[in-house]
C-alpha cells in the first residue's frame, strides 16, 4: 500500500467485523478516522500522547492507543472498539466479559465515565487472557494505561476481579443507565459530535503574559486556502465582554489593545481542515510591546505596582473580626506562626474542553461543557447582540468538571465563529492548550498566627491570606469570601482577625476547584494546629477534639465540641491503631486533619431547582431537570430516591431537559407552554435588579479600603439583603418553578441536596396523583392502596391492581408532576464584614494516614489511610464510596504529585505525560472509609452533599504526616520528593558540620 503524492491514501480495514474502506491523509490518526470518519463515538480522545487510554481499541487483538497510531498503519488490520469486544474474545471469556459490563454498572465503577470505553478494552483483553482469582498487581499493570480523574480505581478493580471469576459484584436491581450509556457510543459528551462538514475552529492565544497589542494583521491568514474566517475583537457584533460576568465585566471575549495573560484569546480561525486552521494561526501577525509583568500577588499589591484592573489590583477584600485579638495574643501562653502556600492545580478533566456549534434557523446552538448554562446564554446573546431566545446552550453531560466549567468556557468563541460563518464549527482544545491557556485553582499565600493556652485551648487567630486571581475578577470574590469564612477551620476561637484579598496578576486565571476555597483555607489552619500540637507536646488528634466548634449538647445546657466532628476523629484514631514500627531506614510519620466545610453553593436567598417526573405510556419513569450529568453520579442518586418514594423495582431514567434552559420562568417545564414575552420580560426585569444589587455590589467593594467596605456594607448590607429577599419572594410567587439564572447549576456538591429535594417533591406529588387515579379506577379507598409490584394494588386484595403503564395510559400519557426546592432562607452578605453567609449546611470529616518516606528517592509511600465522614444519610452507597475515595485520591495527588510549575505567568507543564494524576499503580491500596450518618443534613432524608469534602481534607493528612516523619513542617503543597531529599541533605550537611 502506498500513496503516490500528498493526496489521500485509500485504506481498507476490518472494524468490528465489517470491512471498511476509507480515504485518509497519511497523517490522520486512527482515533480521528474511527471517531470522525466512521462515527465510532466510543473511541474518545483525551491526550494525543498515548497516556490516558480513552482512545484504546484492539488492533489485531492488542490494546492500542489509536491517538498515536496513524490510520494508514491500521490498513489491512483488524480493529475492535469497546462496543464489539465480545466478538474479539474467545468463547470461554465471553461470559466473564458480560459479567464485567454488569459489574461496572452495579459497582458504580465510573463517575463522569469518559474513560469507560478505554477501560473496557484493557479489561476485556485482560479477561481474555486471565481466568479465576486475579493477581491484583497483574491487573493493576494491565489497567495502568487508563487514567481516571474521578475515581480511586477501586470499584473498577473490584468489578474486574469479580468478573475474572465469573461473579456478579453488585446488586443487579440497582443497574445504572448512565453507566450503560458511558460504556457505549451514545454517551453524548459534547466533544463526541464530530462531523466532516463542520469547520475546524482554532484560537490564537497571547504569546505574552502582559503586553500592549500594537497591531494585528490577519491578511496572510485569511489568504490561506481553506480558511473561512479569521476573527478579532473588531468582528464582535455586540459587546466585547467575555469570561464570567457574575461580579465584573472586566474580561474581553477577544483581546483588544492589551493582553493580561497567556490565557487571553486574540483571534479565532475557522477553516475547512485542521492543517489550514493551524497554518492560519501561524500567519496571524501580532505586534506586541511588552508591559511590566505581575508575577504574583505579593508583587501586585505593593504600592506603585502597575494596575491591571480599573481600580488597582485588589479584586476584593474580606475581613472577619471577633473579640480583641491583640489582647488575646498578649495573654496567650503560646503563639505559633506559619506561612502556608497552596500552589495552583489543573482540573484535568479527561474530556478535553470544547464542543460544536451550529445555526438552527435563526438560533445559535452551542453544545459544550457548562456548569452555568444560563450565564452562557446571556453572555452569548450580549456578544452577538441578539435575543437570548436565539441562543441555545446544550450541555447534557461532561467528561469531568470539578468546578472548571463554573466559569465561562468556549461558548463565546464558538458562537462568534458560527454566527459569522453561518456554518457548523467544531472547536476542541488540545491537552496542551488545556494546561497552558485555561483556568487553574487559585494559588494562595497565607500568614497564620494562633494563640494557645497551656491547656491547649485556642484563644486567638490572625490570618492574612492572599489569593492569586489571575488577570480578571471572575468568581474570585466568591472564593475569597469563603476562604475568609473558613479560615478558622472547624475550631472555636473567640478572638479572630482574618483578612483575605484576591489580587490580580498576569498569571493564569483562577477558578474554583473541588472545594471552592475550602482546601486552601483548611490547609493553613490545619498545618498551624499541628505545629501548635508539636510545641505543646500534645497529640494532634486530641488537640483538635478539644477545640472543635462547640454546640449545645442535646437535652442539656452544656456546650460540647461538635459531636460529629469528634466522632470522625475518633474513628480515624481507632482505625489507624498502633503506629507502624520503623525498621528499614525509611522515615515513618502519622498525620491527621479535620474539616468543617460548607457545601451547597452559599448564595442564600431563593436559589431554586426544579425537577419533573413523568411516566411514559410504556410505564418508564423519567426524571427531568436542567442539571447536567457533571460526572459526580448525583443524578443517579436522585433516581434512587424517586424509586424509593414510589417503591419501584427499577431505577427511573434521568434526562436532561432543555425546557428549563429555554424558559427559566419554569412555565415550559411545569405547564408545557412557554411564558409570554410579557412575563418573560418581567422575569428578566426582576433578575436584573437582583443581580445589580447582589453581584455587582460585591465587585464594587473592591474600590474601597477595608474600612470603607465595612462601612458600605453596614449601610447598604441590610437593605440589600432585605431588598433581595423581597425580590426573591416576588419572583417565586409569580414564577413558582423558576430558577435563578445568575447562579450556576451544578456546583458545590449540591446536586443531591437541591435536585434530590425537588425530585422527591415531584415523586410525592406523583404518588398522590397516581393513588387518586388508582382509587377511582379500582373503586377502592386511597387508604387501602399500596405502591409496589410495578403499580398500585389493594392491600386487602392484591389481585386488584393497576400497573403504572395502565395508569399512564389512562392519563393520556400525562402522568407527571413537578417539584421544586430552594435553599433555606439566608443572606447573601453579612452586613458587618461583607462576607458571604448562608453556607447553610456543613460536612464534617477527619482523615489520618501512616506514611513512610523512602530516603533513596524522597517518595512518600502511604501505608494506611483512614477517612471518616459524616455524610448525613447514604442515598446511594456506591456513589458515596466513589465520591469519597475519588476525592481522597485527588487530594493526595494534589498534595504530592500535581506540580504545575507556574513561572512568568506560564504553566511549566504542557502534557498529561508530565502532569502526574495517578494511575491505578499509584493509588494507595488500603484506604479505609468510616461513613457516619448523622441524619442532620438539609438534603433529602438528612443527606449532605459530599462531592468535594474528601479532596479538601486529604492534603492536610498527608502534609501533617510528612511533618511528623521529617520533624520539619512542609509549608506548601505539592510536596515533591525533590524537596524532601533537599531537606534530608541539608540536615545531613548541618549535622556533619556540628
Amino acid at each position, binding site marked *: 500500500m502506498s500513496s503516490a503524492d500528498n493526496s489521500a491514501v485509500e485504506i481498507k480495514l476490518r472494524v468490528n467485523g465489517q470491512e471498511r474502506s476509507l480515504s485518509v491523509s497519511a497523517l490522520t490518526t486512527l482515533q480521528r478516522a474511527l471517531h470522525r470518519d466512521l462515527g465510532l463515538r466510543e473511541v474518545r480522545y483525551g491526550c494525543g500522547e498515548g497516556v490516558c*487510554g480513552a482512545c484504546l481499541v484492539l488492533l489485531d487483538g492488542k*490494546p492500542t492507543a489509536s491517538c498515536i497510531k*496513524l490510520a494508514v498503519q491500521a490498513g489491512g488490520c483488524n480493529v475492535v472498539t469497546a462496543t464489539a469486544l465480545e466478538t474479539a474474545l474467545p468463547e470461554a471469556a465471553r461470559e466473564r466479559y458480560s459479567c464485567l459490563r454488569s459489574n461496572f454498572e452495579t459497582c458504580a465503577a465510573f463517575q463522569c465515565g469518559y474513560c469507560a470505553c478505554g477501560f473496557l478494552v484493557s479489561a476485556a483483553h485482560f479477561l481474555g487472557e486471565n481466568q479465576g482469582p486475579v493477581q491484583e498487581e497483574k491487573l493493576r*499493570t494491565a489497567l495502568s494505561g487508563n487514567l481516571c480523574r474521578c475515581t480511586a480505581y477501586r470499584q473498577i478493580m473490584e468489578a474486574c476481579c469479580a468478573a475474572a471469576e465469573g461473579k456478579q459484584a453488585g446488586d443487579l436491581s440497582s443497574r445504572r443507565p448512565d453507566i450503560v450509556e458511558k460504556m457505549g457510543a451514545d454517551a453524548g459528551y459534547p466533544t463526541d459530535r464530530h462531523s466532516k462538514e463542520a469547520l475546524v475552529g482554532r484560537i490564537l492565544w497571547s504569546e505574552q503574559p502582559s503586553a500592549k497589542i500594537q497591531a494585528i494583521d490577519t491578511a496572510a491568514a485569511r489568504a490561506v486556502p481553506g480558511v473561512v474566517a479569521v476573527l478579532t475583537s473588531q468582528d464582535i457584533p455586540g459587546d466585547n465582554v467575555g469570561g464570567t460576568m457574575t461580579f465584573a465585566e472586566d474580561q474581553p471575549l477577544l483581546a483588544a489593545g492589551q493582553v493580561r495573560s497567556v490565557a487571553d484569546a486574540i483571534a479565532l480561525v475557522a477553516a475547512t481542515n485542521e492543517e489550514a486552521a493551524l497554518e492560519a494561526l501561524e500567519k496571524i501577525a501580532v505586534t506586541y510591546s511588552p508591559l511590566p509583568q505581575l508575577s504574583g500577588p505579593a508583587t501586585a499589591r505593593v504600592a506603585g505596582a502597575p494596575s491591571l484592573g480599573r481600580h488597582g489590583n485588589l479584586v476584593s477584600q474580606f475581613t472577619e473580626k471577633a473579640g480583641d485579638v491583640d489582647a488575646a495574643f498578649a495573654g496567650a501562653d503560646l503563639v505559633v506562626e506559619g506561612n502556608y502556600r497552596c500552589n495552583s492545580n489543573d482540573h484535568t478533566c479527561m474530556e478535553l474542553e470544547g464542543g460544536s456549534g451550529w445555526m438552527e434557523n435563526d438560533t445559535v446552538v452551542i453544545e459544550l461543557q457548562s456548569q452555568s448554562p444560563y450565564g452562557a446564554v446571556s453572555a452569548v446573546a450580549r456578544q452577538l447582540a441578539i435575543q437570548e431566545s436565539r441562543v441555545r446552550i446544550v450541555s447534557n453531560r461532561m467528561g469531568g468538571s470539578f468546578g472548571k466549567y463554573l466559569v465561562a468556557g468556549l461558548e463565546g468563541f464558538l458562537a462568534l465563529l458560527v454566527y459569522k460563518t453561518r456554518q457548523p464549527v467544531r472547536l476542541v482544545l488540545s491537552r496542551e492548550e488545556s494546561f497552558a491557556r485555561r483556568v487553574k485553582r487559585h494559588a494562595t499565600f497565607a500568614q497564620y498566627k494562633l494563640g494557645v493556652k497551656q491547656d491547649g485551648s485556642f484563644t486567638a487567630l490572625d490570618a492574612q491570606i492572599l489569593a492569586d486571581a489571575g488577570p480578571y475578577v471572575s468568581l474570585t470574590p466568591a472564593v475569597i469570601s469563603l476562604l475568609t469564612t473558613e479560615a478558622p477551620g472547624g475550631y472555636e476561637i473567640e478572638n479572630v482577625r482574618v483578612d483575605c484579598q484576591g489580587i490580580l496578576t498576569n498569571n493564569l486565571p483562577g477558578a474554583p476547584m473541588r472545594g471552592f476555597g475550602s482546601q486552601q483555607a483548611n490547609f493553613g489552619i490545619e498545618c498551624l494546629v499541628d505545629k501548635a500540637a508539636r510545641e505543646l507536646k500534645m497529640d494532634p488528634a486530641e488537640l483538635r477534639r478539644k477545640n472543635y466548634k462547640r454546640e449545645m449538647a442535646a437535652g442539656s445546657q452544656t456546650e460540647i465540641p461538635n459531636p460529629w466532628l469528634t466522632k470522625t476523629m475518633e474513628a480515624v484514631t481507632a482505625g489507624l491503631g498502633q503506629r507502624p514500627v520503623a525498621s528499614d531506614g525509611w522515615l515513618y510519620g502519622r498525620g491527621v486533619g479535620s474539616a468543617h466545610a460548607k457545601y451547597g453553593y452559599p448564595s442564600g436567598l431563593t436559589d431554586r431547582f426544579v425537577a419533573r417526573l413523568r411516566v411514559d405510556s410504556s410505564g418508564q419513569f423519567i426524571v427531568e431537570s436542567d442539571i447536567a450529568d457533571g460526572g459526580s453520579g448525583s443524578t443517579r442518586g436522585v433516581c434512587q430516591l424517586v424509586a424509593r418514594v414510589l417503591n419501584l423495582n427499577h431505577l427511573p431514567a434521568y434526562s436532561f431537559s432543555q425546557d428549563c434552559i429555554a424558559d427559566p420562568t419554569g412555565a415550559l417545564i411545569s405547564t408545557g407552554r412557554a411564558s409570554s414575552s410579557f412575563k418573560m420580560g418581567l422575569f428578566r426585569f426582576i433578575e436584573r435588579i437582583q443581580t445589580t444589587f447582589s453581584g455587582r455590589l460585591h465587585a464594587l467593594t473592591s474600590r474601597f479600603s477595608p474600612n470603607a467596605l465595612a462601612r458600605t456594607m453596614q449601610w447598604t448590607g441590610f437593605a440589600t439583603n432585605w431588598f433581595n429577599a423581597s425580590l426573591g419572594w416576588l419572583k417565586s410567587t409569580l414564577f413558582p418553578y423558576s430558577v435563578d439564572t445568575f447562579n450556576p447549576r451544578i456546583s458545590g456538591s449540591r446536586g443531591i441536596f437541591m435536585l434530590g429535594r425537588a425530585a422527591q417533591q415531584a415523586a410525592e406529588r406523583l404518588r398522590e396523583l397516581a393513588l387518586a387515579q388508582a382509587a377511582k379506577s379500582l373503586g377502592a379507598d386511597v387508604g387501602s392502596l399500596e405502591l409496589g409490584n410495578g403499580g398500585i394494588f389493594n392491600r386487602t386484595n392484591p389481585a386488584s391492581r393497576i400497573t403504572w403503564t395502565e395508569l399512564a395510559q389512562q392519563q393520556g400519557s400525562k402522568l407527571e408532576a413537578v417539584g421544586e426546592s430552594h435553599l433555606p432562607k439566608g443572606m447573601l452578605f453579612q452586613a458587618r464584614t461583607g462576607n458571604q453567609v448562608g453556607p447553610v449546611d456543613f460536612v464534617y470529616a477527619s482523615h489520618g494516614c501512616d506514611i513512610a518516606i523512602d530516603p533513596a528517592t524522597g517518595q512518600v509511600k502511604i501505608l494506611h489511610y483512614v477517612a471518616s465522614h459524616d455524610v448525613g444519610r447514604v442515598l446511594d452507597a456506591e456513589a458515596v464510596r466513589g465520591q469519597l475515595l475519588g476525592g481522597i485520591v485527588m487530594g493526595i495527588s494534589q498534595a504530592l504529585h500535581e506540580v504545575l510549575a507556574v513561572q512568568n505567568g506560564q504553566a511549566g507543564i504542557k502534557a498529561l505525560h508530565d502532569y502526574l494524576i495517578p494511575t491505578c499503580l499509584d493509588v494507595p491500596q488500603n484506604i479505609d472509609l468510616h461513613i457516619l450518618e448523622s441524619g442532620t443534613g438539609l438534603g433529602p432524608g438528612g443527606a449532605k452533599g459530599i462531592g468535594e469534602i474528601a479532596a479538601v481534607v486529604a492534603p492536610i493528612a498527608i502534609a501533617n504526616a510528612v511533618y511528623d516523619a521529617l520533624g520539619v513542617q512542609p509549608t506548601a503543597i505539592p510536596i515533591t520528593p525533590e524537596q524532601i531529599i533537599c531537606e534530608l541533605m541539608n540536615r545531613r550537611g548541618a549535622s556533619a558540620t556540628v
Partner: protein
Amino acid sequence: MKYFRPTTINEAVTGLAAGGLALAGGTLLVPSLVSQPDIGSTLFDLQQLSVLRVITPEAQLVRVGALVSLDALHSSSVITAEFAALAEAALAVGNPQVRNAGTVGGNLASPGTDLPPALLVLDAEVVEARPEGELVQPVEQLLANGVEGLITEVRLPRRSQRSRFIKFAWRAASGRTIVSVAAALTIEAGMIADVKLACGGVAPRPARLAAVEQMLTGQAPAEALFQEAAHVGAAEVVVSTTQPPGEQYRRHLVRSGILQALKDMTTA
C-alpha cells in the same frame, strides 16, 4: 506527506536514504508528526518486514529484530533469564498500550528512552542496513553517531552475568524518566570480574560510568564498596538536562540507583 509500506529491507533502505522517515510503532513519531507535519516527506511504514519481528537465540548471542515490541521483549523467556536489565527496561516504558506498539529499533533511534542504558551495559551491538551494505557497531557508537540507515537487529552477547535496570519516575506508569541506572555484573571466584554501569535521564543520551566500573573491577562485593561506588557514580555522571527536578536531586537518585542495582545483583 506520502506513505509507503516497503516489503523488503532493501526497499526500505533505499527509501530512507532518499530522505524518508522510518515508521515502526509510531509511539514517538506520530505525536511529533501531528504537531509538526513538515518534518519529512515520505513515511516508510516497516510493518510488512516481519523478519525483523523475531528473537533468535544462538550459541554465542541472541538476535533481537528491530521490530520486536517492548511487550514481546519483556515477555521473552530468554531475555528475562539472561538479560534482565533489558526486560526491566522494556517494562519500564510508558504503559501497556505504548509497550504493545513501541519497538526496540524505535527506542534506539531515540536515545532518551529507557532501552539504551540497558543495551549499553549488555554490550549490545546494533546492525544497521545502509545502501552501501550492513554496518555492525557497538550501541555506544550508534547512540553517539545517530542512525543513518535502517536499524535491523540488536545482538546481545550471551554471558553468565547478572543485570538490572532501575528507573526513577514520579508516576508508576506513563512516568517521565528522571534518572535511570542500568548495570551488568559478572562475578568470578568471589570477585567482580566485569561490571558495566550506565545512567540515563540526565542528558540527551545515556552514558557509561567509567570511574565506577574501574573502581569496582577486581574487588570483592561488599556494602561499603557499593556505597563508595554509588558516591563516585553520583559525582561522575554528567547532568546536562535543565528541566526540573534539579541537578542535586538527580545526582542523589543516581547514587540510590547504583547502590540498589549493585545490591540486587549480588544478593540471591
